[in-house]
């Protein structure tokens, strides 16, 4: 029973947030902050797999998020919304409950395939050189979309809110909030399962010593392929949710600034710590909102905080420990390792 306390508590919390939002106790603003928190948790924890556990330096996470956002948006607009180029909706709104998760999965899959752009060069390239490749990947994706007229090019792409409306039309609930919360729980759960499995132990092994990993029978190329594709696929899932939360996307919102933001969250939380990534994503989102009154000046304050962090606590909030390492009593309720 105690083992399930954590899971039950988590879902109770989700239900509570949804209920509060439904009853308008949490207004639209707070609801959207919570949704951005969820998206950021997904982005930070998925990047942590590559930057934290595998010890590579990927700085193009925004690009994969972009692929997921655009592909899933295209799917839902095609299915549930009227669009000048794509025509009338193909499916009735009742099917949105099935269509939307499928669109998200397609987006995630496309982002995982885009991850190959980085995964294949990683077989032979490491460290700084691979970082440059990830940077290039981000630029390639953004520029490609900037030049695609079918998704609006630099003007952006919209019509995704029709999906939300279609679902609320059938059952009146804050569906996007529900999907984002479930998506972030799914992401962290999946990554946790992965890094604690025998297969997943190959990732920190590659971080430490690739040659030694090979002579321990780890197929390092396959391992890198899995890690990069899983990471970019989950970023794509986050991107899909982000696009449907906003109802509008443009390529600029996935450029290097976004990638940097996600990296800041990973280093703030601590490399190789999933609970760290989640805590950092939540506190970073709160911080961004709290500093809103500073306007553009917050871009002076936040990097300054980063410098201070690197000076005084370079390992981030959690180091490479998990919550259950710091508070062993928590192990009664959930076990990380």
């Amino acid at each position, binding site marked *: 029973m105690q083992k399930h306390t954590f899971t039950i508590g988590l879902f109770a919390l989700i239900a509570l947030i949804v209920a509060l939002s439904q009853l308008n106790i949490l207004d639209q603003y707070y609801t959207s902050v919570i949704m951005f928190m969820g998206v950021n948790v997904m982005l930070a924890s998925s990047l942590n797999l590559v930057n934290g556990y595998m010890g590579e330096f990927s700085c193009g996470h925004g690009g994969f998020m972009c692929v997921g956002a655009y592909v899933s948006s295209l799917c839902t607009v095609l299915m549930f919304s009227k669009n000048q180029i794509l025509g009338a909706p193909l499916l009735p709104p009742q099917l949105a409950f099935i269509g939307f998760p499928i669109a998200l999965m397609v987006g995630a899959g496309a982002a995982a395939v885009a991850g190959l752009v980085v995964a294949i060069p990683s077989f032979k390239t490491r460290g700084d050189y691979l970082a440059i490749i990830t940077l290039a990947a981000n630029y390639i994706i953004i520029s490609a979309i900037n030049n695609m007229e079918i998704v609006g090019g630099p003007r952006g792409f919209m019509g995704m809110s029709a999906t939300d409306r279609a679902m609320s039309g059938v059952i009146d609930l804050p569906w996007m909030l529900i999907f984002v919360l479930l998506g972030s729980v799914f992401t962290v759960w999946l990554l946790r399962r992965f890094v604690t499995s*025998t*297969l997943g*132990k*190959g990732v*920190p*092994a590659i*971080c*430490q*010593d690739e*040659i*030694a*990993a*090979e*002579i*321990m*029978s*780890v*197929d*390092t190329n396959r391992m890198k392929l899995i890690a990069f594709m899983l990471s970019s696929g989950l970023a794509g899932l986050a991107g899909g949710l982000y696009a449907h939360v906003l109802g509008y996307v443009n390529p600029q919102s996935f450029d290097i600034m976004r990638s940097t933001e996600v990296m800041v969250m990973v280093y703030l939380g601590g490399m*190789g710590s999933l609970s760290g990534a989640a805590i950092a994503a939540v506190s970073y989102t709160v911080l961004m909102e709290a500093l809103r009154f500073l306007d553009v000046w917050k871009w002076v304050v936040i990097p300054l905080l980063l410098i201070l962090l690197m000076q005084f606590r370079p390992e981030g909030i959690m180091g*490479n420990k998990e919550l259950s390492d710091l508070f062993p009593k928590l192990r009664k309720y959930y076990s990380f390792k």
Partner: protein
Amino acid sequence: MNTLLEVKNLKVRYGNIEALHGISFDVKEGEIVTLIGANGAGKSTTLMSICRLPPPEAPRVTEGDILYKGQSLLNMPPHKVVSDLDMALVPEGRRIFGNLTVEENLKLATYARTDGHEHIAQDYERVYQLFPRLAERRKQRSESLSGGEQQMLALGRAIMTKCSFLMLDEPSMGLAPLLMYDMFRTLKELNQGGLTILLIEQNANLALRFAHRGYVLDTGEIVAHGTSEELLADPEVKKAYLGG
């Protein structure tokens, strides 16, 4: 006895420098064979070539062949050599994963095993029985282990990959004499249990007392070979490697 490993006229180079000038030797099933020689003789190069480690770590084979149970290894990636052929290497300097715990290091070694949980569980037990110290420290990060314990872990890890042929690169390096004898006693036990061993050692005296047969490597060539007794009695070998 069947020949397990056969190295035929192996020539390898690092860039433009030829490190091995065509060496041939073989290891038979159940044997302990040692390669001895001075620094730079090409001992580690030989082992790395057998394990097919990727460049730039490994030398490039230009001529000759490496056969394991009659099958050429030259076109196999290292992880296949370990997983499909049941070979294992304890590398020079141990190269354990310091960021993982003792248990996780052992768990990683079972990465490619497909012979079921029962066999894996038996091997865990075997490793913890051979090295009770590892059992005590199973939850500890392995970078916090002492040098001797790290060597135990490196050997335990090799056992966990399920090996029938074990290669060791300088296992005595950095070990106190007492620990060194312990290590060799354990290896002898494993050999009596059916494990074939190819050992590389600078400490020629110790290696020859432990092995059945030996080869003497000097600047990329095999200059002498024979049973351990023969080599220990050979005046040339005595003079060059055994201190008179």
